[in-house]
């Protein structure tokens, strides 16, 4: 579980996150939705440590991430996987080496054990016969799947996905959505997906957070999305514009 307590972040005097408090549960897909510039990416970056909040706390179970000492923080980081918007695959490495990389850096597995794990993760994301290909030789959907395989190879407890469907055709986007749902349920991990794809919300969203102008504007389940209600015009406008 991840818990946020009153997260605030400013850039050059402009408030980007305003008092965000939330709880993200394991085993379900937690979706952060909202228009571009609403603070979604900064919030996710604050959770994984790529940004440091000006105030507030991020708890992974009971560990206060930003106040941990270096070694504890590094050890917690090994439980975190992230799928970046542009996949962030290392372009000097092959598909296989990309997925192997976290194991090579942080595990004491033998080469054979590492390869077994790599191949099982690649199989999990339905990738075969691409082990020796480079990032530039595979399609966008395959890159996303390699990114997921690299994120889950370390037996993680927390998975963050920044716009996992961006740049993908609708069919591939659905495949990625289903894959993320399957992984979340099978490994019972806390998955947080940052998206503005309403199809994702409809298909796999379980716990939804709508962000608007740096604030948590609405929170609830997919079934409770206030479609067409006058009480939440910002969320209505976002949902309507998505169809």
């Amino acid at each position, binding site marked *: 579980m991840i818990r946020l307590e009153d997260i605030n972040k400013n850039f050059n005097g402009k408030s980007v996150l305003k008092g965000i408090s939330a709880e993200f549960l394991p085993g379900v897909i937690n979706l952060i939705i909202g228009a571009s510039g609403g603070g979604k990416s900064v919030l996710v970056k604050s959770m*994984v*440590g*790529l940004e440091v909040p000006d105030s507030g706390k991020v708890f992974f179970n009971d560990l206060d991430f930003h106040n941990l000492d270096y070694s504890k*923080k*590094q*050890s917690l*980081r*090994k439980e*975190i*996987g*992230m799928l*970046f*918007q*542009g996949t*962030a*695959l*290392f*372009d*000097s490495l092959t598909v296989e080496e990309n997925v192997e*990389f*976290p194991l*090579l*850096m*942080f595990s004491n597995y033998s080469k054979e054990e590492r390869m077994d794990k790599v191949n099982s993760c690649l199989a999990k994301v339905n990738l075969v016969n691409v082990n020796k290909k480079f990032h530039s030789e595979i399609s966008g959907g395959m890159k996303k799947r390699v990114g997921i395989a690299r994120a889950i190879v370390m037996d993680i407890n927390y998975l963050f996905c920044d716009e996992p469907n961006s740049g993908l055709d609708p069919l591939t986007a659905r495949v990625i959505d289903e894959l993320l749902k399957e992984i979340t349920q099978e490994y019972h991990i806390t998955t947080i997906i940052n998206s503005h794809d309403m199809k994702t919300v409809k298909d796999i969203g379980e716990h939804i957070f709508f962000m608007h102008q740096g604030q948590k504007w609405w929170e609830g389940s997919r079934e409770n999305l206030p479609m067409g209600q006058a009480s939440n015009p910002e969320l209505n406008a976002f949902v309507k514009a998505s169809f």
Partner: protein
Amino acid sequence: MSFFTEIGRYIIFMSFVFKRPDRRKVFYNMLMREMNLIGIDSLLVVVLIAIITGAVTTVQTASQLTADTGFLPPNLFPLELVGSVVGSSSILELAPTITCLILAGKVGASIASEVGNMRITEQIDAYEVLGINSAGFITLPKILAGIIVIPCLIIISNFLLILGGLLAAKLTGVMTIDQYINGLRSSFVSHYVEVMLIKAFVFAFIITSLSAFQGYYTKGGALEVGEAGTKAVTRICVTILALDLVVAKLFL
């Protein structure tokens, strides 16, 4: 951004770079890759430029020493002096400085673009999320590779500069090979080689660290990556020339 802010950021960046590598085997593989990229891939350009520069220096020095300027009688200086001038200037200036200015353009721009591209494609963020010290992981192998390989390139360049001069002497007939070699031998000072090596290590550090620094803090997109490469080359060239003067003043 002010000059002093940039210096401060560079020092902070360096404090992250010089930390113990996470995995020695991975570090060793990266070091080998960088040595290949910096050394082997730059060898041809260094060889060509050294031979041509050596030849041009010999022909021009001979021409200046034998010219009838009206101020001094022609042929006042013995032609051996050409070998002496080419030898000393190769060791002290041409081999370390010219080679490193060339490498600033080739290696410096390449490192700045590579690291800048890693920044804008979130590869650096991916290292950070994994808990890897990205500044050290990316930069330390490049700096060490540069410090190992660039002095070797400079030594090779030095030999080829002198060889280029010798070939020019033979092919253009401005002087005999004996005159050239006698000149070289008569003016050889071993301390000059030490100064050359000091320059080599200092310049190698500047080329690799400044270019990685410039790339690491790239923001934006492809345009900014290009700008990072250009900025890196400009700053490295200015720094090398400034430090050239400092080293010369301190050690000569």
